[in-house]
């Protein structure tokens, strides 16, 4: 498959508007302005595009929830918080092809009538944020943003908002709180952001990759898009592969490419040993082991394996990896990032991390593993937002395959591997 989203990854000039335009950039925007906004939404619906931020929600459908009232202020917020460990795909687009995102965002905003959009980029991406700001300035200059864009009558302003180190702000309602200048904690839904989002106005939140996919759909049509990969979740997808592989990096492949192919063909196979396990979609996603390697990397196939596609960040582990340590690292992360709003997540992740730390430090006690399992049960399904659930999914996915390593730690105070 010819890369769509990553086609400019290795073109060091592509971030400049001239170069982007020379490669056919902003043609899709031009084309979009010849269409009726509702037709754009329909086109995206027909394409079958599902959100790349993790939940896989149909993008066209999300846009269609926005009230049609033209007098009402509406917003688009691009989720560029990319915080899920093992994920680095959005950064690739932002750093190397910022105009692709800007074009996608402008088309989306035109489709559902947002006059202002924000790119919520994680604070650590200073380089990316500067790139985006420069690109936005260029786009204004060239008339791709601002008043009456390309004579379409559509006006649109775009701003970059930098986060400052909080994974939870990737959750869409927390992102809105953060954009409003608050602590980024999730809000009660309903009301959903499409009805009451930023500044209490209808707001769409879409991932960078999702929005960057939009220009190609406009250009090539829904049929073309739907023809790539599985029927229920088609399209090109960026997989980021990291960990114990020979060639870590981003690979844009048809949705539904088997994980074996991704790890062994594209990423060059295992580094420093043999395959032990892989996390398919950012650390929240439950692990896959050898026997699962033929699983296709798409929302539905992974869900059928009790895992998830999530962000598509594949983390590969070889046989030297201590799974208690992996559990500790993931849980330490969730405990560190728990916003503190709800009790089970706040207390539970911290508690589990404390136990794992002890186990890792050789002070495990009999019953620790069972206690962790009990605590997972006390968290799962009871938290305010999916972060708490995610924490338990990660550890349960680990325990499902490697419980014996945990018990070994309890008994011997050290690793089995």
């Amino acid at each position, binding site marked *: 498959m010819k890369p769509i989203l990553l086609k400019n990854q290795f073109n060091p000039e592509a971030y400049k508007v001239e170069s982007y335009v020379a490669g056919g950039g902003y043609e899709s925007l031009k084309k979009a302005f010849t269409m009726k906004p509702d037709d754009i939404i329909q086109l995206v619906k027909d394409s079958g595009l599902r959100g790349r931020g993790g939940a896989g929600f149909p993008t066209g459908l999300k846009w269609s929830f926005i009230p049609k009232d033209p007098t009402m202020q509406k917003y688009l917020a691009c989720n560029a918080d990319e915080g899920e460990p093992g994920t680095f795909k959005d950064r690739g687009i932002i750093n190397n092809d910022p105009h692709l995102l800007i074009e996608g965002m402008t088309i989306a905003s035109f489709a559902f009538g947002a006059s202002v959009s924000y790119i919520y980029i994680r604070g650590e991406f200073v380089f990316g944020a500067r790139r985006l700001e420069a690109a936005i300035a260029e786009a204004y200059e060239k008339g791709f943003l601002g008043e009456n864009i390309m004579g379409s009558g559509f006006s649109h302003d775009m701003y970059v908002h930098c986060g400052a180190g*909080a994974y939870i702000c990737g959750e869409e309602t927390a992102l809105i709180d953060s954009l409003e200048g608050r*602590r980024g904690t999730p809000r*009660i839904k309903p009301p959903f952001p499409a009805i009451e989002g930023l500044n209490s106005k209808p707001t769409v939140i879409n991932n960078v990759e999702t929005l960057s996919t939009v220009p190609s759909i406009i250009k090539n049509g829904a049929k073309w898009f739907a023809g790539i990969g599985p029927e229920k979740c088609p399209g090109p997808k960026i997989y980021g592969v990291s960990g114990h592989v020979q060639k870590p990096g981003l690979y844009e492949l048809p949705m539904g490419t088997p994980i074996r192919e991704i790890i062994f063909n594209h990423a060059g196979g295992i580094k420093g040993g043999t395959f032990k396990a892989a996390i398919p979609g950012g650390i929240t996603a439950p692990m896959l082991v050898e026997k699962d390697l033929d699983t296709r990397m798409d929302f539905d196939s992974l869900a059928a394996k009790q895992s998830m596609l999530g962000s598509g960040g594949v983390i590969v582990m070889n046989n030297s990896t201590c799974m208690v340590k992996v559990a500790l690292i993931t849980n330490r992360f969730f*405990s*560190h*990032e*728990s*916003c*503190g*709003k*709800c*009790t*089970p997540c*706040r*207390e*539970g*992740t*911290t*508690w589990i991390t*404390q*136990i794992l730390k*002890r186990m890792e430090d050789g002070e495990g006690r009999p019953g620790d593993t069972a*206690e962790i399992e009990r605590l997972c*049960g*006390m968290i799962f*399904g*009871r*938290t*305010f937002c999916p972060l708490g659930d995610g924490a338990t999914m990660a550890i349960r996915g680990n325990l499902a395959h490697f419980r014996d390593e945990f018990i070994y730690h309890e008994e011997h105070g050290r690793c089995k591997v």
Partner: protein
Amino acid sequence: MAKLTINGKFIEVKDGTLILEAAKQAGIEIPTFCYQADLSRIGACRICLVEIAGQRKLMTSCTTPVMEGMEVNSESAAVQESRKGVIEFFLSNHSLDCPVCDKAGECELQDMVYKHGPRKGSFKEKKIRFHEKDYPLSPVIIKNSNRCVKCTRCIRVCRDTVGVGVLGSMGRGAHQEETSFLRTYLDCDHCGNCIEVCPVGCFMRRPYRYKSRPWDLKSADTICPYCATGCTSKIQERDGEVVRSISKMGKGVNNELLCARGRFGFDFISNEDRLTTPLMRKDGELVPVSWDEALESLAVNLGAFAPERIGGIASARLTNEDLFLFQDLMRSAFKTNNIDSSARWNRDSVSAFIKATGINEGGVSLRGALEGVDAIFIVGTQISEENPVTDYLLRRSFDSRWVFTMIASARAMKLDSCAQLTMRHDPATENALLTAIAKVIFDDAGEKAAGLDCAELFKDLSLKDLSDESGVDQSDIGAAARKLFGSESATFFAGTEFLRFPDGLRGFSLLKELLTALGKKITVVPVLDRCNQRGAWDMGVHPAFGPGYEPVENPGLGNAGMLEAADARQLDALYIAGVDILNNYPDFETAEKALSKLQYLVVNELFLTGTAAMADLVLPVASFAEKAGTMTNQEGRVQSMSPLMKPPGEARTAHDIFSALLKAHDFEFNVAKPKGTFEKIQANVKSYADVELLNERSDKSLTGESGNTVSSSILEKEADEEDQTPAYTAEDLPLTLITGNHLFYSGMLSSRSATLGSLLKEAIVEINDTDAKKYDLKSGDHVTVTGRYHEGRYAVRVKNGSRKGVAFIPENFKTGPVNRFFRKGEWSQKVRLKKVDA
């Protein structure tokens, strides 16, 4: 309505009801932590999760509304297990130091563990500790974060209800601590509502610290003795000392809310300066005497004067029963109509105020007045400081429902932040402002208004002149007018500024009359600053009317009249029940001169006030905590209070004293208990006839509709008496001094509260930011305030957004009483400020 079942029980509730509330209606209790009715819903703590048939996950009953046909289970195995889990999580990082915690015994977490388990937690890791020692956050608040369950009720009540928003969640996850800016000392309302809403021992009262266990306390339901919002509370004592005043959700107008005065200002009761025995002047000295001697001498001495040479002034903090007997005593025993309540309001201002606000026509419910109304206009009241809990209740109602709100006042106030339009007018220009608004409405209404009775009045009015006089822009006046004109209903909050500057009532009545004539539904909520001011008037403690506002044949003198008469040696004897005239009357010198000329002065008091010290007879009385009775709040809500303890020493209730005197006068007279007096009141005052005394949150005790039928009587403006003492010109005295209550000070009682005293240590003068700049002053600087008649030293407080050219000194400072600046009952004076070294 929606039909559903909870635990198999069928119930029908209003659409939109939360599952939690529906369950409550069905008699099923679901435990909660972060939920509190009237606070924003966050669904964070997860203790209230329930099972709903067809839902994959357990749902928070505190945020999920009912749906038709819903099947809810709040006791299923999954729910119980989840609940236990959440409690175990709460305890995991909780310090579990119940033995040394003030909250033990009334702690929601303790209760919850007791009820729902688990009895044993398995947490064996290291607990997160925020600090080793508890740290004070204010003179009245002390904090222990190690006990916090992160329900954020403290933050929400502080932000959304109290409106100061000085608390926040610092950090995140398990390291999150709810505290102040960098844990520094708070500069806030010190209302302690954070303490009240805290389910555990995280926010605590400093004055109550380690004083008692809740089960060792004796309690009584009472009514706060400060402003007329009429908050109910429970005061509690241990070993004869009142240690706490608490409020509870679901009780009274105020629910769980109180202000600093209501929550901490009760300690004057235990002040050791309380009077404990009657004192009689013998050889120029006040010496202790027996009650028999005291009462006999009183009856004999007062009886010796001709009725027109006797007068009585009673405090608007006495109970209805006390006040009813007092006026009965003055009228039937001493045959005089020289009766007044408080020493601050002029007789005619009171009459006009009552008429303009419709107080004589029955009660008006605060909640009712806010429900469904299109516009709210707050004018003539310094509500945020004089009636703090009314401010809280308003803000809370605005939080749940947007209403267009306008505020007109010379001083900025906290409630401004809830208003869509604020108008800063010059002191005492309410008349100009309100007339100007009426004028715009009249002009806009065109045809519709042309035929009205009042049309004449508008003919010669110039909007520009009125706008100039008030200092409010014509555009703001226009905006206010248009909003009122465009509304079908409006509620006015009208307060004590109209009593200080009754001229404003002309404009107020005019505006109200015009709006009413234009078909608007107008409701007026009077906002009063003494707990039973309305009761005092209802009871007829007024020279011109008796109980139930029945006009009297020969109206007597009001407080100003009595003082003037005394000064002219036309009045010989005064019976003052609980008013420190020397401190309250807006002209200290006249008051002192007048009192010194009296032949006989009797004072009922808690303390030997300046006024009491001048008396011939001082009778020690019981405080609000030591007696039974009823009080009527500003809405007209009659509420009862019961005694917590016995008065100190030989002090007696005012009711006992008045009864005894009446009995001495009339052998038929036989009431001994306030309850009997209340029945008499019910027989005499129509609006009290069917009052049910409920201290629950109920509007039942409010009788009539609000006054929307006021006649068009407009006060004649009295001629301005120019009293320029030539020593000063306008340039010399550039600022206009006004007064009112301070958030922590309201009347004589507050000045005897050590706790309130700790919140504001010195007398202050408040100016706005522009003037502060102009005179090179900042908060904390010291100045002398010089007026025509007085000079005093004050600490400066700068308040952003107040009207420029205005200086404000609160009433009732022991050092620096503001009334010395005033003359002849006029509540404003020109002054200047001069910086002095600290």
